[in-house]
């Protein structure tokens, strides 16, 4: 690897405190990044990762005010002497929210946005847009509007929009959030190809460690509470205790190795599944696998929710859901997965009566609920929508969570107790007096979960509950859901997170292009190559591990892993 003696980015004793915060968010950062390196930044939610990114691209102090101490140099120049426009020539940023990043009316215009601001003549602009669009494979979509694009295509457009300026550094803030697994994988591949071809310096901020490690990175930097606590390569990172201590999800196959009693060391090269030296662990895995008793229990309870031949279209032309049938039993925990735009969120809207099906019936305990209004259905079904901003209507956290209870005329004394309990479960107790506007995306999402949980619905639908959550909070929320599930609440999870599906939902319904293509156990879904391709999912690394360990039945191996983990957690 190319190692210039001079770093392209250099933080020295750098501290930053937001205007409205009582404490600094970044403490005493010392970090050198060299030209051409590819860096992954991980850390719990609220640890300061995005803040670090804002310091690099100039949004701090241009847009966010606060106090800076210490020095930050980019290309040898102190950033305090540069403005955001000069910085934007050196560093291109792809923001987490691809809808906000998409400011043009069409793909072409959006890619050209930086050139327009630079007064590039129209003809030259068209040429450059075409060639960059080709790099990210969007050249056939130049006249499409954001409404017609999938999440992955929007992400590609954002990428082209920053690459067109020929910057030295590319910064990605959670590029995978809201992408389906296959599209996320492709996004990582595109970033990697650009890195290899152009030699640009690349920084990726992401919660989904295993997904980023699909391609190699030079260094992983771990941030916790605004401090850098680790800076190492992927192999040493997974061999260390840093991930557990900071509550970051380690790759699943590493967890499996540890369960099997294998000592994960640097020498095993466990940073990537491809480099893993499996011969060191084969026997241990086989022994561990054989020892696990399968626990397949069938749910024989009555069905609570039934979809019969449901079809739906928003505009009367293009079908979004076609002939969907399924049957959910009381007290089940099911996940609905599938590619971006498959119709998952639409399905949840039909269940709640937000939209009305064109054909078919929805039954609740055998009774058709066609005539029930949204409000009546809400007594039974609680929906946590994908976008938290659409649910939040009060400025303060407490009032927001209490809103539903107040509208149902619950006495105020009871409200306080119930709200406080739920806020604690959702990890929001420390913020109880904060305005919602001061929360990070992940924290807002938890507020909306709390505001529905507090209503005690019979059936709970959560649309992407873990988007933007770190592993610790994710586990807390999910364990709470498991608990209320045991008390009889039926839970439906809509998710792109394959770990979540594997760990928590015995059954998965898979949608692709508006059709149901599978309805079986999570382990089976994630080991079925055909379903995986059709629904843009990703094979789990556990399956790859089972093949390395010469286990014949990979699906059973994955299932055993789940059973083992469940028993571990229940202890």
């Amino acid at each position, binding site marked *: 690897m190319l190692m210039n003696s001079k770093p392209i980015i250099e933080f020295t004793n750098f501290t930053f405190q937001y205007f409205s915060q009582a404490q600094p968010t970044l403490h005493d950062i010392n970090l050198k990044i060299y030209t051409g390196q590819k860096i992954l930044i991980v850390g719990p939610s609220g640890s300061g990762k995005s803040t670090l990114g804002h310091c690099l691209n100039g949004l701090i102090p*241009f847009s966010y005010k606060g106090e800076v101490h210490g020095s930050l140099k980019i290309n040898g120049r102190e950033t305090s002497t540069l403005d955001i426009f000069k910085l934007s020539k050196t560093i291109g940023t792809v923001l987490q929210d691809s809808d906000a990043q998409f*400011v043009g009316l069409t793909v072409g215009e959006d890619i050209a*946005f930086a050139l327009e601001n630079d007064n590039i003549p129209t003809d030259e*602009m068209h040429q450059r847009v075409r060639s960059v669009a080709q790099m990210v494979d969007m050249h056939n979509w130049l006249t499409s509007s954001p409404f017609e694009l999938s999440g992955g295509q929007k992400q590609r457009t954002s990428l082209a929009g920053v690459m067109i300026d020929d910057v030295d550094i590319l910064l990605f803030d959670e590029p995978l959030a809201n992408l389906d697994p296959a599209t996320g994988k492709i996004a990582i591949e595109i970033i990697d190809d650009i890195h290899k071809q152009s030699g640009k310096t690349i920084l990726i901020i992401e919660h989904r460690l295993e997904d980023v490690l699909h391609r190699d990175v030079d260094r992983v930097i771990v941030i916790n509470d605004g401090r850098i606590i680790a800076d190492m390569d992927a192999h040493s990172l997974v061999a260390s205790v840093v991930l557990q201590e900071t509550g970051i999800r380690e790759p699943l196959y590493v967890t499996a190795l540890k369960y099997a009693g294998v000592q994960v060391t640097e020498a095993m090269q466990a940073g990537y599944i491809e480099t893993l030296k499996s011969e060191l662990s084969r026997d241990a895995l086989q022994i561990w696998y054989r020892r696990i008793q399968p626990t397949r229990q069938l749910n024989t309870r009555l069905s609570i929710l039934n979809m019969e031949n449901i079809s739906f279209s928003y505009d009367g032309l293009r079908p979004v859901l076609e002939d969907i049938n399924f049957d959910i039993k009381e007290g089940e925990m099911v996940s609905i997965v599938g590619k971006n735009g498959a119709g998952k969120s639409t399905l949840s809207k039909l269940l709640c009566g*937000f939209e009305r099906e064109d054909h078919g019936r929805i039954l609740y305990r055998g009774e058709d609920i066609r005539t029930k209004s949204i409000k009546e259905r809400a007594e039974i079904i609680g929906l946590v*929508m994908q976008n938290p901003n*659409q*649910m939040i*209507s009060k400025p303060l956290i407490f009032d927001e969570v209490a809103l539903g209870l107040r509208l149902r005329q619950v006495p105020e004394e009871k409200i306080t107790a119930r709200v406080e309990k739920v806020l604690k479960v959702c990890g929001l107790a420390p913020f109880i007096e904060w305005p919602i506007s001061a929360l990070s995306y992940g924290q807002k999402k938890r507020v909306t979960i709390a505001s529905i949980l507090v209503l005690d619905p019979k059936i709970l639908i959560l649309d992407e509950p873990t988007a933007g959550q770190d592993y610790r909070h994710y586990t807390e929320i999910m364990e709470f859901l498991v608990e209320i599930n045991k008390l009889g609440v039926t839970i439906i999870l809509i998710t792109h997170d394959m770990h979540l599906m594997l760990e928590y939902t015995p059954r998965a319904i898979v949608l692709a292009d508006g059709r149901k293509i599978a309805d079986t156990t999570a382990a089976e879904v994630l080991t079925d190559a055909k379903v995986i391709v059709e629904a843009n999912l990703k094979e789990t690394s556990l399956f790859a591990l089972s093949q390395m360990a010469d286990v014949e039945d990979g699906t059973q191996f994955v299932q055993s892993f789940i059973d083992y983990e469940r028993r571990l957690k229940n202890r």
Partner: protein
Amino acid sequence: MNMKMKLFSYNLADTFIHRLSGLTKLICFLFLTFAVMYSYDIRVILVVMVFSILLMRTAQIQFSQVRLMVIYVLIFIFTNAVISFFFSPEFGTSIYGTSHEFASVFGISLTFEQLFYQVTKIFKYASVIPLGMIFLLTTNPSEFASSLNGIRVNYKAAVAVALTLRYFPDIQRDYKDIYLAQQARGLELSRKAKFIDRFKNSLLIVIPLIFSTLDRVEVISNAMDLRGFSKSKTRTWYMSRNFSRQDALALVVSGLIFIATVFVSIFINHSRFYNPFI
């Protein structure tokens, strides 16, 4: 509430009018509408109106595309005619300086002057509509902002218009989602609730819409700053089109119509009104 109404049903036919640049169409639209807004001469107005209806056919606009607008406009023109009659039944007389009564309604005398004034006004208002529809239905919204900048509107204002067009569908979708989400929390929005409650409850929808939009303002303006927006005094446009001979032709024709209108008023009618009564 009809949420399925599209913002622009911009149609992708390939006609002479579609091929004109957005800037040309904007200038022609302004020339022609100013002409009919200025003139109160029914002859001029009818000429422009016939001309614009012919243009509508050239642009292959179907009646079904504009039916809703036509209904709105007819209601508007009709109520306007009725109330302006009851407010000022003598207005025509005072404009034209003569009074030829031919009937009376509810004791108010009806004059030819008033009738003529009101008929002229109906056509005056109606004649603007086809022009607007042609402009809306044949101009690519993306080209609109660059055309505004082309007629010397500050580019920042032009970008604001582009952003409005870009985010209107998103905001419309958000509005609907929030409306439903609040109902699912137990909000009563039907006619069952008292007026004051309904008012308070509808605020519970407008408030999240506005606050999430304000959050978005922050993120979007960050995204734009990061890509160098507003760093220089001018800006070029990806969607601006080069001028063709057809553009020149269209500009000349509509310019001439405008000049002719003004000419008729100043040198023939000696006023904005055409007076057949003297």
